């Protein structure tokens, strides 16, 4: 199983990988937990002019002045650019203004469909999870979305028990047929590596493995025969500066501690 590396914790590595998915000046729909930190880190490093949209009705173009644990923490409202209704910011999502969003998941399948609602065991409900929140909206309506989750065999399944947040369904053409106007997952950042999606078949492909992880580890922790890219890379470790900023954003290590 993956462990923290010499330089940083696994969560830190994942947050830094998430931050690098954000380009400067993009409009980002920010989720909770690691994605929240990823956005804040990107703002403080390579994407200073990215704009953050939060589903509870917040638009910010600067990081919160103090560490926050939820998007509703008062420092996240402090000097916001816009405080508004959920339907206003969700409207920005629906009308195609959002470049990228981030979602966590409990269960994912080979086409990037996510389940955060119901885990079944031989046809019966085994675990009730919290549900969609805004995840279904983000997965359906952003120009692209990024999935961040732990990489374990019971989470990486051939077919999810319930599609809370649509990925590419059963492959190419599925989203269009379902009526979704755009988008789809562009990356899956896990505790073991980074996966992207084949542009033609829309199937998940392993493209990068984290330090101290082997492709074998990843295959063993994936519930289907995961395809591996011909140009498999090593996930770059965080720079000193990235780590310094990240530790300012999460000083207690609430999200990124080991």
């Amino acid at each position: 199983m993956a462990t923290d590396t010499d330089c940083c914790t696994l969560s830190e590595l994942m947050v830094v990988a998430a931050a690098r998915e954000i380009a400067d000046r993009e409009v980002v729909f920010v989720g909770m937990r690691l994605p929240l930190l990823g956005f804040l880190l990107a703002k403080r490093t390579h994407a200073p002019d990215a704009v953050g949209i939060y589903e509870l009705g917040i638009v910010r173009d600067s990081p919160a002045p103090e560490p926050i644990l939820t998007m509703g923490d008062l420092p996240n409202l402090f000097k916001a650019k816009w405080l508004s209704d959920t339907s206003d910011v969700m409207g920005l999502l629906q009308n195609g203004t959002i470049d990228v969003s981030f979602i966590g998941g409990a269960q994912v399948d080979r086409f990037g469909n996510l389940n955060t609602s119901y885990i079944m065991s031989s046809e019966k409900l085994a675990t009730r999870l919290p549900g969609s929140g805004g995840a279904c909206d983000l997965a359906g309506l952003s120009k692209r979305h990024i999935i961040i989750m732990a990489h374990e065999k019971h989470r990486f399944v051939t077919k999810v028990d319930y599609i809370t947040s649509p990925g590419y369904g059963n492959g190419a053409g599925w989203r269009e047929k379902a009526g979704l106007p755009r988008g789809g997952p562009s990356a899956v950042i896990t505790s073991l590596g980074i996966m992207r999606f084949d542009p033609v078949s829309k199937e998940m492909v392993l493209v990068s493995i984290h330090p101290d992880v082997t492709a074998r580890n990843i295959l063993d922790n994936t519930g289907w025969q995961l395809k591996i890219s011909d140009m498999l890379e090593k996930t770059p470790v965080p720079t000193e500066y990235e780590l310094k900023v990240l530790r300012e954003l999460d000083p207690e290590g609430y999200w990124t501690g080991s």
Partner: protein
Amino acid sequence: MAPASKLITLSEALNRYVPDGAEIVMGTSLETLIPFAAGHEIMRQRKRNLTLIGPISDILFDQIVGAGCVGKIRAAWVGNVITGSSYNFRRAVEGGDLKMEDHSNLTVAMALKAGAMGVPFMPALTGLGSDLFKTNTSLKKITCPFTGKTLTAVSAINPDVAIIHAQRSDEYGNAHFWGNLGVTSDACLASRYIIITAEEIVSPDVIESDPNRVITPGFRVSAVVHAPWGAHPSPVPGYYNRDHNAFIEYRSNSKTPQKFEKWMRDWVDNVKTSDDYIRLLGNERVVKLKLINHLLSEPVDYGY
């Protein structure tokens, strides 16, 4: 003639407007301004078979479920925002005691928008391709009469009661509400009754000095309750910060039904008034949660 004051106690307000079986929308601004004091009064009154409506609820819905008050939830997410799953909710759904109607935040917003606008449904692009349709009969796929494309029709929700925690209100229900707004405005307009709980009760002059900040017109409000610290442990812009530890402690305090019973005895049943609650919180905690960095807005001129 001056209108009649709507200022009553929390217990009276819930006795009068929340019968068993009522549909209640709460937690409408998501992580902020969650009406915990009102939720706890619902628990003390041992209401039964309620339907709870909201986008996410943080731990409030879990607590009311734990008290046995809830038959159904219509929401996008039920859990503990900073720790994940919540236990009473899990136990109730997994045990078959609680019906769940699965929404997304956008479908909750659209359902209340439809309710507020007096139309039977709102069209949306969200939900398509998801399994929400399987566990939510208030979502249907339709064909757009103009483009021929597939849309999601989100059926209107018109709750019996909206319970809103606001920063300040006059005794007639004109309340100033600021910060992120969530689905609060539509939730009020869609509901038959509105109960406002407020940190402070102020004169109408204060409210009328800034009508843009009024969340819903007072003539639609049924009851106003003075409830200082009434949203703790959630944050109230202008008043206090989020009490993260309370959410972390609640996770372990709700892990088993026995632990939850004890938590409910200490924090709900043995608390009768806001003063009791503030005393239980303790001075140190109260001081620590208060704002340190104030930021007053510039006044605007509404004159003529």
